[in-house]
Structures are given as C-alpha cells and as structure tokens.
C-alpha cells in the first residue's frame, strides 16, 4: 500500500540522459513544460510527444514506468476532462439534452488538455527516474545560488530537501512497524465509520511524530558534531561540470521550442 509511491523514485543507470548535468536536465524539463503550454495545436503537442519518446528511449527506462507515473493522476484527468466537456461551448453542437450541451469545441479541448497533462507528468517523472534525489537537490542549490546575494537561503533549502527525501523510506518503514505494534495491541484500522478510522490513526501518528522529532534532533546533533555550519565555504566531493553533450541537449530543446512556435503558426487547432 505505502510501498506503491513512485514519487521521487530513481532508477540507477548509465544512459545519456542519466549522465546529463542535473542542472541541464532541470533546465530541459522547464523548457519542455514551456513547450507544452505554448503548443496550441495537436501538431505542437505532437512535437512534445516526440521529445518525450526520444528522451524515454535514450534513458532506457521501461515504457511501463510511464504508465505507472500516470496512474495516480487519472482522477484529475477525468475531472478536468468532464469540466471541459460540459462547460466549453464553441463549434458545432454535437448533443443537446435538457441543460447538457456538448460541443465539438468541448471535445477537442478535453482531449487536448488530457494529452497535455499526461505529457507533463511523464516528462517530469522522467527527471526523477533518471536523477538521484541528491544530485537533483545539488542542482537546485547551484541554480538558486545567485539569489544568495539577496539573502536567499539556497544552501539551507537544498539541504532541507535532501534530508526530507532521505527520510521518506525511513519514515515509511517506521510507520509499518508502529502499525504492526498497534495492531498487535488490538488496534483496528480497517473497519468502522470514517470518524472511527480517523481516530484509529492517533495511536500511529503520535508515535510517528515523536520519533520524527527525535530523529531530527539526533541528526542535528550528529551534523554539528561533524562541524556542519551551513553552506559557507563548503566544498563538495562531486563537482557538477557541463560537458558538450549538455549543450547539445539544450540545442535540441531550443529546436523543439522553435518547431512548436512554427507549428502554431501553420496549423491552428
């Protein structure tokens, strides 16, 4: 149940995509998102699909992982789809029954939005599939570091993210353990009314919070013992360096955005 969470899951590998500089990967992801939102025709989205497929094939991540990342957002897709279908009235009327009116414009928008959301999720999950959380936060720190001039705590935020990601599996394991222990004492979490079930969470959440605070304190102490004083003057074991392939990847990204702009011109929806 809790083990099905795929957010932030990382698949180690040695593909080109894996080896790209994480900062460039972040930049490319942002470019990809911009591209998807600029596209206002199916041809433009087609370019997005092509970009995604090429990236997935290069990364060597199995295609079924794409389906897995979409699974949790299916309700959102259905919800926005229904809203678009019923509330957009443009183009020809396809069906009219009492107060419900479905138009061709509505159908097109529904499909368009659904494809866009799916592409968005697949693309961003490819980023986490191919980049380890540690390098990702590293990249975020480096990208945000110019903001240090205006006293923006870039290092601290990156460190917080690293720690948070590091403790997700630990806390999941802890939750499992506490749940078993309370079940052994006769706690019942699976039956009863909603209120009863919510109440049954108290014996799990309180020990979980207590242990999270305890861990935080221990970690803070351990970091101080190793003379951690924030980012000032800290060097790193793995330096981020851009390689020719990174510039090449950015060039491809720019080319795709250009293609989307051109396609928008020539094939309106």
């Amino acid at each position, binding site marked *: 149940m809790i083990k099905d969470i795929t957010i932030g899951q990382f698949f180690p590998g040695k593909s080109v995509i894996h080896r790209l500089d994480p900062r460039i990967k972040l930049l490319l992801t942002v470019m990809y998102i911009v591209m998807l939102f600029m596209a206002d025709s199916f041809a433009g989205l087609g370019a997005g699909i092509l970009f995604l497929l090429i990236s997935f094939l290069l990364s060597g991540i199995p295609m079924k992982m794409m389906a897995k990342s979409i699974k949790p957002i299916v309700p959102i897709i259905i919800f926005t789809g229904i809203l678009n279908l019923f509330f957009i009235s443009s183009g020809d009327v396809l069906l009219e029954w009492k107060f419900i009116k479905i138009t061709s414009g509505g159908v097109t928008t529904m499909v368009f939005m659904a494809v866009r959301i799916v592409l968005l999720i697949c693309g961003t999950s490819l980023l986490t599939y191919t980049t380890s959380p540690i390098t990702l936060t590293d990249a975020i720190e480096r990208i945000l570091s110019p903001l240090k001039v205006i006293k923006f705590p870039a290092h601290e935020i990156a460190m917080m993210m690293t720690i948070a990601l590091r403790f997700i599996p630990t806390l999941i394991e802890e939750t499992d353990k506490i749940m*078993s222990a309370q*079940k*052994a004492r006769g706690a019942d979490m699976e039956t009863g009314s909603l209120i009863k079930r919510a109440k049954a969470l108290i014996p799990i959440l309180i*020990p979980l919070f207590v242990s999270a605070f305890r861990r935080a304190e221990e970690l803070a102490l351990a970091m101080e013992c190793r003379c951690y004083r924030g980012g000032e003057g800290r060097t790193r074991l793995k330096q981020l360096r851009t390689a020719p392939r990174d510039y090449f990847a950015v060039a491809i990204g720019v080319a795709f955005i250009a293609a989307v702009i051109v396609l928008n011109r020539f094939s309106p929806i």
Partner: protein
Amino acid sequence: MGIIRTEDLTYIYGEGTPFRKVAIDNINIDIDEGEIVGVIGHTGSGKSTLMQHLNGLLKPTSGKVFIDGEELFADKSRLKEIRFKVGLVFQYPEYQLFEETVYKDIAFGPKNMGLDEAEVDRRIRETARLVGLREELLAKSPFELSGGQKRRVAIAGVMAMEPKVLILDEPTAGLDPRGRDRILGLIKEYHAEKGTTVLLVSHSMEDVARTVSKILVMSDAKVFMYADRSSVFARADELTSMGLTVPQVTRVFDRLRAMGIEFDDEVFSVDYAKDLVLRLLEKKRRHTVD
C-alpha cells in the same frame, strides 16, 4: 498438541520481484502450554518473521499456523480474537507509546478487547505492579519517563491483555546491564506467577540461558533445533560455527569439567556459578582440615 504449532510454514518477501527473499523456510514447531522458550538466531535468521506469523500480522506464503488448536486465517473474522491470545511485544516497544498518561496507554490493549472499566482498571494495576511501576507513575505522561521505565510501560501494555502466549522480541536491546536484569527478572516473575507460555527472542545466549528452560535455535530461515537448554548447549561447537555462542560461564565450567573437576549440574548463570564454586571450596577446606 501444543499451544503454538506450525505446519510447513514458509514466508517469502517480495515474491515476483528481484528482491525475493525466503525469510522462513518450512518451519515445523510445536510448543507446549506454560513453557518458557528462548528463540535464538543471528540477525536475518527469520526469528522476527516467525514471531509475526504467530499472531497473524503476516500471512504465510504457504503452510499453517495453529494457536490453541485453531488455525490462523482459516476464518478472517476470528483473526482479531485469536490475536488477543498472543501478545507480541516488538523491538524497542517504547516507540509505540502515545497516550497522555501511562494509565491510559496500558489501557489501550484491554480496551480494544472490549473489557469493562473495572476489569481494565484491575488489569492495569496488576500489571503495573508486575513490571514494577509505582502507582504515582500511572498518572504521568509516558514521555516523561526514563528509557527503562518506558519499556516496562510498553511491556505492561501487552501483558495487561492477559494473552495465553507472550512473545517478546529483543526486550533487552539497548538497555544497560541493570535495566536488562530488571526486564529479564520481571519476565521470569510474570511466567512464574501467571504460568503463561512465554517466547523470548534474543540474539544473546547469556540473556536467554538464565531465563528460559527450552531453546529454539534458528539459522538460515530454518529451525536448527528445539530442545531444553542443556542439550542445546551440548552442541556448543555447532552453535559457534553458526556464529552463536554458549554463555561464557557455561564454557568455563565445561572446560573445568574437561580438566577433571566434578560438577553435578550444568551452569548457566554467574550467580549459580558463584554458589557452586563457594560450595566446592568449602568442601575442599573441610577435606584438608579432616
């Protein structure tokens, strides 16, 4: 038929994934009522997995578990009922405390059983006495107590359910020698007073040797042997090759016996060893005086 019985019990973690691991393999055990058993084995030998099967927290991949003659998972609606018969104290049980007061925390189990106020109150006071918690501690928050006290509260929380079988998973882990002696002492007292079946899981032979009468040795997901402690320790060489040790005193006395000094009994604890040596010296002194 004993109170705990398993039939070809097997459990596999992550079946169908690259992380597949056989945690316990074809376990057949039969433990009699009223026995106090030490379960010993290396980390990863499957002790904890086996224990979690005994009260239905894990569902066997194959095989059966019988508690008090009734098969677990045969009827899902009976599971909770059977679970009350087997009290399981997890490793570091103090991390499961959550209530405002010690009293309420110990009450959690008994209340889940649906007992009435008076009975719950009786059980809390009785177990608090058993584990050596003073009356005035009952009104305190469990988070204000010392580590050893917290653990005793957590153990009391399970004991108060008055299970027919009490399983304790590494109850002495992370405690200082005094805290350890205290916990082991109260387990022994509990067993003597209540006569319930007790399973004590540990990787420390020293702890187990002076508390239990029978030992279940697990190795590599299998049961290596289940016998009374002297016959287990008689196979000291095999235990050592599995990375388990026989208690130091027992080894010392085995060597003394090999050197030709006569003892009429197996030695498992330092206290007993002291008495034995003193008696021996006394005998020798009298011998020389005569």
